[in-house]
């Protein structure tokens, strides 16, 4: 067992897979000599050399397109988009090409590739370097999407994403990079599409993702002081989506909340609650509430950004009020 930061866990997961499979290669801006602008790929160039850890120009279409071409011809590329907002620059490659080519060719083309990207807000970077884009990617058939919340999950989900035969988007949350936790030694491989219950509770089910998981857990501590025990589920993977774990929890708690960093409209939680409405409506004893960033761009100013993103306090207040009103 070693203590690792979330940022070190990125390199640990990639390195583990590069060690076992020579077809795993990396490409992206500043990932080699510089070790990544978030220092997530530090040490990999020294370990695996410039043939496998390729620095690229600022050419997001070329980075993601080249990853696709390499994946369809036998490699397992891990491409970095420095900020997830840059999906906007490479969206044709992601949404039109990578997501659809297996289907359009009736399975002739396989695309075992990973696009990893620094996602999310809280760092005062402003509206073009802070977005939560996981809901953009999950809206496109043909893409798998994961968003780890802990260092151990980062290692295991990164490994699973690299081994997966389909394209996987790995959202690395910028606000979690400095978080430290124990990570087991040896090879770690998680399974895509498995949510994890981070805290058990009987009064409400709270589904969260990435940086919203620690905030939901902080809200749980606060609510527990009032005798309210919430169950916090870390969704971890949006595609595949583990509704089995969520619905089993809702059957026990009869209340459902989502905590989403994304702007309100069409966030992942909308899909989660619509499935719950279809399949678990008779288990519910109160309104289902989505706690999200409002439908506005994120501001750079700390006071404004903090007012926008769901805080532990807002999560606790919303849950408390909703449960009281449902009694």
């Amino acid at each position: 067992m070693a203590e690792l930061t979330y940022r070190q866990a990125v390199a640990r997961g990639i390195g583990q897979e590069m060690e076992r499979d020579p077809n795993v290669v990396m490409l992206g801006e500043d990932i080699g000599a510089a070790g990544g602008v978030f220092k997530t790929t530090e040490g990999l160039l020294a370990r695996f050399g410039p043939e496998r850890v390729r620095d690229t120009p600022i050419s997001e279409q070329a980075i993601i397109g080249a990853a696709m071409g390499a994946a369809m011809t036998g490699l397992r590329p891990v491409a970095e988009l420095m900020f997830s907002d840059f999906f906007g620059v490479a969206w044709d490659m992601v949404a039109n090409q990578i997501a659809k080519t297996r289907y359009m060719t009736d399975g002739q083309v396989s695309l075992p590739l990973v696009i990893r990207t620094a996602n999310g807000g809280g760092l005062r970077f402003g509206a073009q370097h802070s977005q939560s884009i996981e809901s953009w990617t999950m809206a496109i058939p043909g893409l798998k999407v994961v968003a780890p919340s802990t260092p151990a999950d980062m290692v295991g989900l990164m490994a699973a994403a690299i081994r997966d035969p389909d394209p996987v988007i790995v959202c690395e949350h910028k606000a979690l990079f400095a978080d430290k936790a124990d990570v087991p030694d040896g090879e770690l491989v998680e399974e895509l599409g498995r949510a994890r219950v981070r805290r058990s509770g009987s009064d409400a089910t709270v589904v969260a993702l990435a940086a919203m998981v620690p905030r939901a857990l902080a809200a749980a501590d606060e609510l527990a002081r009032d005798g309210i025990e919430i169950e916090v589920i870390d969704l971890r993977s949006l595609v595949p989506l583990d509704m089995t774990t969520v619905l089993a929890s809702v059957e026990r708690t009869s209340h459902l909340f989502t905590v989403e960093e994304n702007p309100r409209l069409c966030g992942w939680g909308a899909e989660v609650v619509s499935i719950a409405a279809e399949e678990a409506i008779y288990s519910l004893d109160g309104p289902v509430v989505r706690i999200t960033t409002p439908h506005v761009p994120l501001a750079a100013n700390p006071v404004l950004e903090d007012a926008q993103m769901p805080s532990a306090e807002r999560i606790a207040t919303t849950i408390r009020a909703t449960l009281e009103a449902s009694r």
Partner: protein
Amino acid sequence: MSTDVTDTPAPAELDGDLGLRMYRTMLECRLFEQRTHELFLAGLVRGTTHLGIGQEAVAAGFATAMRDDDYTFCTYRGHNHTLARGVPMTPILLELVGKQGALMGGKGGSMHLTSVEHGAMGSYAIVGAHLPIAVGAAWSAQYRGSGQVAVCFFGDGTTNIGAFHEALNLAVIWKAPVVFVCENNQYMEYTPIGAVTAVERPAADRASAYGLEPLVVDGNDVEAVHQMAQLTIDRARRGDGPSLVEALTYRHGGHSRADPGTYRPEEEVKAWLARDPIPAQRAALLKGGVGEEDLALIEAEVKAAVAVAEKAAREAPDPDPATAMTQVWADGGAAWRS
């Protein structure tokens, strides 16, 4: 980076067999597409088609210079390039008419013809997308040491989209074994390319920006195209990096099936029709001593192949609607819940 072509060995003499092979390939493209167009008008082919009638020499000249395991990347105007890699007509036509036995199960259609086993790595319908993808395939070949080359065909209009420039730069700095082939058919969809481009030669005049030599070839002269293909493919295969070729050619018809192409001056159309690559190659072969009966035999065989494909297309059943839900993922299915 210097990419001087004068130091490369002269290509092997074009032998008679090769000339006939290229003639057959061009004819397969021509007769297949002509029949496709007729079947479109008859309501058998659905959706849209983008024909390459008039541009066959580019496909035939390059495909005959490629190794079996080389990669072709092309655009939605991709029937010619797919046929030229040896993909049989019948599954292609079944794809176009949407029947069982189709090349991609009916999921792709005319704009996405792909046959990985033939090295036809896809027809790409968003302008420019396949240039970076071809660089990635070439990078993969380089990394694996396979000696494969990627040849990437695109239209003149592509030279004005960002992906073209990103791909060229990346290919050069990585010395990727890729040959970029601009089929300059003079029009980006409905607009003359000269009206929307800062330079006269949309591809060749951009080459120097990437340290590449400007290479222009008569795209209606199949033997000239083939020589250029050998030169540039050999260069890529021996590790000397990418090339950018501009092949001057002409689309006999409009942009797509919806376009009669009436915006083009009559004189211009006439002049290019007189330079049709297929009669030109036929005349060259006859002049070179090939017998009329040999050409007639090829023509009869190609016509028969088109007829066989058409018969299959008319008789094949519709696909099973359940197949609409297959092959989203590598497990063959479409499930998004675990």
